[in-house]
């Protein structure tokens, strides 16, 4: 399977999970699928497991995307997905690192995973372990002060084994990020903080792959991935309501037709 098919399959699983759980965050999850698929199927090393690369979903409300990717990659058993966001279930709507293999950090409150990731990449570097750390943050999440606290320190510490990716869909829970605060221009901000910064189409697998593999010249890397919230399902795309809307039987059918 190529990444296009893998991403489609992950998107179908997300719709399935959202439908079964009647839970929110479908749009947020669909937005970052191509990034996760590229990371887990093309870029990250998992052998041996003890020395694996680390992915941290800092925007942990997109947990459905991570669970679906982990299942597709065979890291967690698909049967675990049945208990997503269920009474007496298996997987919570936000991450608990004790719930399943491959959940590297617990999270849900924004502006946490990014900083934990910095600490991990420093730890690996200090231990002289050749392991990479990737952290995905949201553009809404970029309003958290902790993100910018970490942004100030990572270049100083020479964390070239750390890559942050901003899922830049410009649509947060209650509006457009750019209407809520002046976080733009995003790229020049990260550049000014001393990061190796790349801006790409966050749904173009080749562009994602190239950006992830680009030499950061000794700096921590920030990939600004321009994405569409709800990507892959036309009636969800760039629609704010799909941060919280639930997938009904009929909508699931419609979505699956598009994701064949």
């Amino acid at each position: 399977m190529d990444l296009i098919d893998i991403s489609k399959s992950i998107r179908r699983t997300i719709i399935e999970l959202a439908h079964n759980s009647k839970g929110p965050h479908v749009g947020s999850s669909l937005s970052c699928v191509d990034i996760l698929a590229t990371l887990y199927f093309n870029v990250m090393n998992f052998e041996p497991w003890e020395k694996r690369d680390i992915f941290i979903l800092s925007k942990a409300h997109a947990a459905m995307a991570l669970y679906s990717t982990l299942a597709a990659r065979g890291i967690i058993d698909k049967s675990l997905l049945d208990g997503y966001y269920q009474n007496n279930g298996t997987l919570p709507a936000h991450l608990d690192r004790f719930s399943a293999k491959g959940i590297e950090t617990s999270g849900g409150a924004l502006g946490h995973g990014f900083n934990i990731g910095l600490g991990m990449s420093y730890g690996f570097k200090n231990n002289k372990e050749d392991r990479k750390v990737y952290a995905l943050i949201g553009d809404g999440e970029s309003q958290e002060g902790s993100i910018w606290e970490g942004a100030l320190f990572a270049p100083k510490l020479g964390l070239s084994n750390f890559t942050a990716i901003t899922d830049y869909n410009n649509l947060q829970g209650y509006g457009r990020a750019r209407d809520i605060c002046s976080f733009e221009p995003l790229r020049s901000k990260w550049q000014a903080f001393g990061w190796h910064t790349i801006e790409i189409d966050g749904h173009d697998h080749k562009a994602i792959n190239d950006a992830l593999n680009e030499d950061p010249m000794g700096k921590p890397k920030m990939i600004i991935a321009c994405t569409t919230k709800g990507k892959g399902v036309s009636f969800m795309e760039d629609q704010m309501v799909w941060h919280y809307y639930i997938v009904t039987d009929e909508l699931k059918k419609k979505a699956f037709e598009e994701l064949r």
Partner: protein
Amino acid sequence: MRNAFMNTVMDACQTRDDIFIVTGDAGLGVFDEFKDTYPDKFLNLGVAEQNMIGFSAGLSLTGFKVYVYNIIPFVLYRCYEQVRNDICYQKLPVTLVGIGSGITYAPGGMTHYSVEDIGIAQTLPNLTVISPIDPVEAKLAAQYSLEANEPVYIRLAKRGEPAIHDRDKFDITLPQVVKEGADVAILFHGSISVEVMKAYEELIRGEIYPLLVSIPMLQPLQKESLLDILKKMKHVICVEEHFENCGLGNIMRKVSLESHSTWKLKTMGIPYQFIHEIKNTESMREHFGISSSDIVRTVKDIAGGVNERR
């Protein structure tokens, strides 16, 4: 206490290579030698407490035994959610070393006091809380933390406190009898120990011998052990340099209720209010009724009552 604690941790680096010390631009002079000897085992993460705690959680996930050193508001309050989610929820063996307990820094102002930290720590499952009374307990607390597989919060005052215990080896997880006595027990933790010992000297001059019990580990509290120590007591006085409504006093109210205790409980602490008084630590203790003379008076009032009933 600060030096007893940190020196024990830094000495352990001679035989362990997994210890890492993080500060948030605090601890002037404390780490100078350590930084020179172990430059790759120390980081000053600056004035950025959320990052400091999250970063430390990440370091811990890669196998380091992390110590975070800062004054208490910046190790527990400013970054409460990071302590909750990143360290306690993930059950990581990070030790938070908080300096300036109670009103140590008076008259520094309310922002720099730590009179509610035990109350806050009680909202954090998995977190072990140790509030040493002297350098002996501080050293044992450090030894405990070096072996701990869970998050630990150490509540320290500053440096230069006198040793109170005449033993140097005991189980820091258990309440400790500091002085044997009868009828009235005084329970205490942390830097108020100076006032308690001063009060004790005065009381024995008047031939009143209260039982002195330090409680270094406030969470989890070994209740059975404590109840056993207190079983012959008629009165228990709890004194602390902390808000009276959410520290050891409150913990003891619950213990007393649940154990149907026969002893009567009296709590002494700082009243639940923001502190606007501009006084040094000693005067502040007098102002809030937790000084040695307040302790003496309280014990005498109670002891008088005990004797009258006899």
